[in-house]
């Protein structure tokens, strides 16, 4: 069984709001002193794939794939330090924030290339959304590009008899599904797929694992449309919202008075709902 996990490198989402700035020309966040990190849902996806491999007790190979700039090699190395078996970087060209249609097409082409060389992937895992732009459209677009069935918000994959058992989160509750490979899932987080911390030895080993690099030309995608990366959507405008609300702090000489004020304000609102 082969499992592929897609990764995205993003600006560290834990940058405090006070250090966050927009570059108006780029219509994106300024990097400033922030780190570049692997998107958290993508790391949850890596962890989920590794748990599937462990549950199967052997015979599962996990590959990590990223469409990004050369710095994204760090994300792939980290995935291999988490014990992913091999990795592939498709070097991005053009728009630094390509739309989901472009990313879906590039990832699909890379997956087909890797399948041609190493056999089909039973499961493709994608993070449910990214911590930067967070549009959450890539997994669905990729599934359609590949023409494979898909399920969103999956938190666990368990090996079965031919089929794979998926567990996922919905508004209604937890759902269990049976999927015949090949298929695509988007991965969400739960308490069981928190990304593992790589062991020192595995970090060293990760440099001995194969990291293949592909260009858009290698995938026959060296086109103006893919480089522009805006065939279906683009950022028109981005801004930091003003702190618009003035907070009325409960005043009074004693705690009792202040809480009384707060209680009255809450009661007003609750009573108005009726």
């Amino acid at each position: 069984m082969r499992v592929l996990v897609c990764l995205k490198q993003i600006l560290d989402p834990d940058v405090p709001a006070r250090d966050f700035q927009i570059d108006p020309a780029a219509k994106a966040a300024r990097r400033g002193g922030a780190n570049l990190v692997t998107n958290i849902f993508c790391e949850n996806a890596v962890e989920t794939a590794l748990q599937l491999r462990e549950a199967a007790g052997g015979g599962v190979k996990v590959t990590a794939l990223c469409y990004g700039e050369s710095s994204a090699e760090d994300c792939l190395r980290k995935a291999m330090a988490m014990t992913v078996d091999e990795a592939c970087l498709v070097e991005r060209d053009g728009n630094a924030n390509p739309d989901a249609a472009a990313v879906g097409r590039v990832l699909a082409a890379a997956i087909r290339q890797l399948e041609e060389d190493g056999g089909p992937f039973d499961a493709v895992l994608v993070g449910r959304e990214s911590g930067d732009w967070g549009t959450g459209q890539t997994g669905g677009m990729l599934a359609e590009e590949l023409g494979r069935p898909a399920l969103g918000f999956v938190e666990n994959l368990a090996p079965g008899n031919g089929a794979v058992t998926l567990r996922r989160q919905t508004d209604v509750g937890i759902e269990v599904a049976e999927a015949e490979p090949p298929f695509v899932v988007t991965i969400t987080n739960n308490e069981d797929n928190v990304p593992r911390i790589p062991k020192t030895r595995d970090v060293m080993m990760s440099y001995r694992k194969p990291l293949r690099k592909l260009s858009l030309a290698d995938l026959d995608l060296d086109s103006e449309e893919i480089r522009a990366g805006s065939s279906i959507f683009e950022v028109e405008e981005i801004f930091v919202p003003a702190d618009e609300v003035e907070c009325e702090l409960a005043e009074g000489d004693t705690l009792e008075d202040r809480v009384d004020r707060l209680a009255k304000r809450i009661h007003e609102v609750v009573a108005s709902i009726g």
Partner: protein
Amino acid sequence: MANVAVCVLGSFGYDRAAQGAMGAGRALADSVGGELHALVIGPAGDEALAALAAVSDRVVAGANEELRDVQPEQALQAAQQLHAAGGGDYVAVLLGNDTYSQELAPRLAHRLGGASMADAAAIRMDGGELLAQRTAYGGKAISIYRLKKQPAVVWLRARGFEPAPERPSPGEVTSVDLALDPPRIRVTGREVAEQEGVRLEDAQVIVSGGRGLGGPEPFQELKALADTIGAEQGASRAACDAGWVPPNWQVGQTGKKVAPELYIAIAISGASQHLLGMGDSKVVAAINTDADAPIFKHCSFGIVEDYKAVVPLLTEKLAALSS
């Protein structure tokens, strides 16, 4: 002629999200001088269909029994066929914010040759293309996207939109028999979450607790407060990650996105990822020891005090006020 469609899941009925999506759809349809159609995926009650007809120009219902419990692969086929049955002439196809609609959007857009976008808080047409406003960078920024292909398939932060007004006369309801292939991924079981009271997403009042509570016990005190004012309970990611309360209590970027009339944040500092989950609340109240906590920049009123001193007293006073 260019129309607007709203996809509604029959099993969810004409809930608040559907009402908001229809409201957003009506405003958009009016702006392009087109009709508003409701595309109903799966069996819906007569009441829900009548409510949809009352605010639509046309309802196209695909009531195949196999769609009663949503199979995502078949819901996608259904949406595509209903789109065609409704005439296919749509500048936009809008969806609510349930997880089924969320996963549907990009795939439906791809099949229809359109563009997709998620979690729109505002939408409008500009030069024949749809602009969708939403948050970015975990709530630190607001982005406006231009969707360059039609239809623009967009799931909305639906409860943030006003419900659609009723029409002078109801729209025509057409039933369509859909031809559905068996799902290639089949949902075989559901563990319906224990739900005391209403879903957080539908709650009118929410009392949430955060890291500052320090453990699971204080949530009992918050429950007494919540019960007094008929509120549901929520929590920040920190409280859920610590295991103090179940994960489905989590409000935020990686949890639930709520839009109650009143949101009371207790011992929650207001990290941007939390604000993203409750930013559409009509009124926000905060109780926190730190006057500089970001939550105080995002609330209408609050108190700078330790929750331990405030909550029991507040519960007592609210009980007295409401009796």
